[in-house]
Each structure stands twice: as C-alpha cells, then as structure tokens.
C-alpha cells in the first residue's frame, strides 16, 4: 500500500505543464485532486514514471458565468467549490443538486471537476451531468487546443479521447433556461448502498414542457450502466409531444429498463440495474415535473 517510485514535477503555469506532458507523453500521469489517482498509486495499480502535479497552477481554478447564461469551469476547480457556488445554483441547479452525491465532503474538498471527468469512471456523476447538459470540454496540448462534446470524449470504462500530452483545461456548460418559455425542469437520482458510494445506477433527466404540460424536449441520461453515460433516446421519444402523466411515465420506465444492457459486478447484478434504472428514471422525471429550474424546494 505504498507508492512505487516516480519522478515528480509541480509546474506553476499551464504552459509549463503542457510542455512537461508533451515531453513525457504516455509516461506521465496528471495529479489533480488525487482522489482517483492516489488510491491507484498507493495500491500500485498505477505505476506512472512521471507524476505531473497541476495543483500549483493558479489559473485553472474558476467558475465563470458566460454571456449565454452558462458556465465555464476551470478543470482544477474543486468539487466542493462547485457545490457551494451561487452561480452554479442559479444557472445550472441540477449540477449543484448532484454535487453532494460525489463521495464525501472530504473527497470533494480535494477532488476536481476535471479530474473526475478525465478519470471517466462510468458510475461517476460529473461525466453523466456533462453528458446530459451537452457541455463541451477544452483539451489543451503544447501545440494545439480542441473542443470535444462529451459523446466524443467518453470512449469506454476509464477511457477518454485525451491523447498523451493533452490536458483537460476547461469544462463549458450551456445555459439551462433563462427565458420562461425555455424553462428546463430537472431531476437527479442515484442508487448506492451507502451515502457517498459509487452509484450502482444513476439518472439525470432534463425536461421542457409547454404551458399545457406537453413535453417539448426531453433528455434522459443514465450512468453506472455501461462504459460511458448513455442517453435513452427511445424513452425520450416516448415523452415528446405527450402530456407527461402516470401512464406515460410507466411506459418510459419500462422502456428505460428494456434499453439498458448493464454488466453484473460485485455491487449489483445486471437484472437489478435494469429494473432499478427504470424506476429511478421515472422518479427523476416526476421530480422534474414538480420542479422548475431554479426552484430547489419543489
């Protein structure tokens, strides 16, 4: 339970960090909050030759409101900062509401937004939220910068489109509902055995209803059920254009269960994940109907 030897660097600027990653390529692991990498290093499941500690880079930790009503979040921003941010609460309340489900507060004091996304655990909350919110990731390298959508970024279990030498530097999340007619409603729920555990199944639902309660847009994202977060398009289609009531929700719940094809592991069987996935998808939609964006108490 002690780390193997590695070379340690603590760059103090982004340029310096990117140069370092360029030089060491595949040999380097980026140390951000350390809440995923350090356990692996302690158990020697990871034995990087080079550890690039980005915690001394000052300008990667920010939550900036963007003109379109969304947010740009620096990759090194601590999860606890997102949880406490009034900008996050006002602009993307589903993000604020989901943060306490990430580990425990001691974990969120260190854990970073960029770290969780780059680690790409299929049962992690932040990847699923970015997926559901249709955000953008800024990937920087010594020679280039590119912007990827979550659907192109997450490839499979712990695997992303990040190339050796690349660093996730910014997460951009779009506005969710400023104009009353554009009001998104939301729901977030996950199932785990104990508070703070990784989710066995999780759901993020976003819903837009017109004045008559007819569904105009729907996004149902499930996590912990495949190598990456997944949208359940067939369930979304069942919602579109319909008045969202009990029988529609029963259908949607069934469709979600049918569409899921999760693995079994020591935490839960595939059958359990399918069953419970449909249930919590329905519950997030019920929560969405009862709750307007910005209204946390509903």
């Amino acid at each position, binding site marked *: 339970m002690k780390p193997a030897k590695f070379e340690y*660097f603590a760059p103090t600027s982004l340029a310096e960090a990117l140069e370092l990653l360029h030089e060491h390529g595949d040999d380097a692991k980026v140390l951000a909050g350390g809440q995923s990498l350090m356990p692996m290093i302690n158990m020697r499941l990871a034995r990087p030759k080079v550890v690039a*500690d980005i915690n001394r880079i000052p300008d990667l930790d920010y939550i900036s409101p963007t003109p379109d009503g969304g947010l740009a979040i620096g990759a090194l921003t601590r999860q606890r900062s997102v949880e406490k941010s009034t900008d996050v609460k006002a602009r993307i309340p589903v993000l604020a509401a989901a943060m306490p489900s990430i580990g425990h507060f001691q974990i969120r004091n260190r854990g970073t937004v960029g770290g969780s996304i780059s680690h790409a655990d299929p049962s992690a909350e932040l990847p699923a939220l970015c997926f559901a919110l249709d955000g953008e990731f800024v990937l920087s390298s010594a020679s280039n910068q590119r912007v990827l959508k979550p659907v192109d970024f997450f490839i499979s279990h712990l695997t992303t489109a990040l190339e050796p030498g690349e660093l996730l530097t910014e997460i951009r999340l779009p506005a969710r509902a400023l104009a009353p007619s554009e009001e998104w409603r939301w729901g977030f729920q996950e199932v785990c055995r104990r508070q703070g555990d990784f989710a066995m199944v999780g759901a993020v639902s976003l819903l837009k209803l017109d004045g008559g309660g007819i569904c105009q847009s729907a996004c149902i994202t499930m996590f912990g059920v495949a190598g990456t977060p997944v949208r359940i398009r067939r369930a979304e289609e069942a919602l579109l254009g319909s008045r969202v009531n009990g029988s529609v929700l029963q259908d949607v719940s069934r469709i979600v269960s049918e569409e899921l094809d999760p693995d079994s592991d020591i935490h839960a069987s595939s059958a359990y994940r399918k069953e419970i996935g449909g249930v919590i998808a329905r519950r997030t939609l019920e929560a969405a109907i009862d709750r307007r964006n910005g209204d946390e108490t509903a």
Partner: protein
Amino acid sequence: MTSSYRAVTLPIKLTVNGKEYQSSVEVRKTLADFLRDELGLTGTHLGCEHGVCGACTILFNGDAVRSCLMLAVQADGANLTTVEGLAQEEELHPLQQAFQENHALQCGFCTPGMLMTAYAFLQDTPSPTEEQVKEGISGNICRCTGYAPIIQAILQTSKEPPVRKAGE
C-alpha cells in the same frame, strides 16, 4: 517551491498544529506517512490507505482531507491541523470531551479521523440536524460503536458555546 522539480527527494516547509517544520521528503511519501513517520504525529491513523475509511482525516489549510491521498510534497507551504492539535495541554477539546462523555469510542482507531471530520463539519454546519450529522460522518468508518454515540457527541458539541479553533 516555485518551479518544476525533478529530484526524488525534495525540501518542504509546513506548519502543523501551529508549529513550523522543515524536512526533506521522498516524493512518493504520502502526507499521512510523513506525519506519522517523520514528525512522529501518530495520532493520524491509517486504515485503508485508499481514501475509503477516513481514519487519516486532517485539516489541510482548514479543509478536511484524506492525508493518505496526498503526497507530503504537496503540503509544502501548507497549514495543517491533526488530532494532536485539538487538545490544549491537559484540556480536552469540547469535541473530545463530548466523545468521552458519550462513550463515542471503543477501540479508538477511527477516533482521530472522526474528530477531525466532526471538527470541520461543525465549522461548516454549526447547528446541524441529526440527519446532517449522519451525512457529515458518512465518510468515516467505525466498526465498534454503531455510530449512535458518535452522532450524540457531535450533536451535544453543536449545542455548546462556540467551539474554540483548533491549533490556537
């Protein structure tokens, strides 16, 4: 520490419980091991060493963190508080007093982490509900008490006059 380092061993300077330390540490040494082995502060316990049990919880610049998930070199320039920083001389910290009165420990292994977690939790949430306390300590595992007396001790402390800052 202002530029990149390459060495296997690095000099660090930090404050622990109000006292300044200077040392030279191997870069792969965790902060928890450094506190225990180099500084002799063995109150910080190591249970799982991968961030699950919470026994190694300390305050890092005021925030509760797992010291097994940090490298000692990362603490260069930092201000830490460990369980040794709670009591003043012979006088127990109110949290420690409440733990004793409520029999909130049996074997005592989880206690340092519980205390540091509870301390940080009460700084953040001075008047918690029982539910909030349960969630607050959910990242710390205790195999003896069944948690009920720990929750009672934290609730009792929260009802007392404002808690003195640790390390002061």
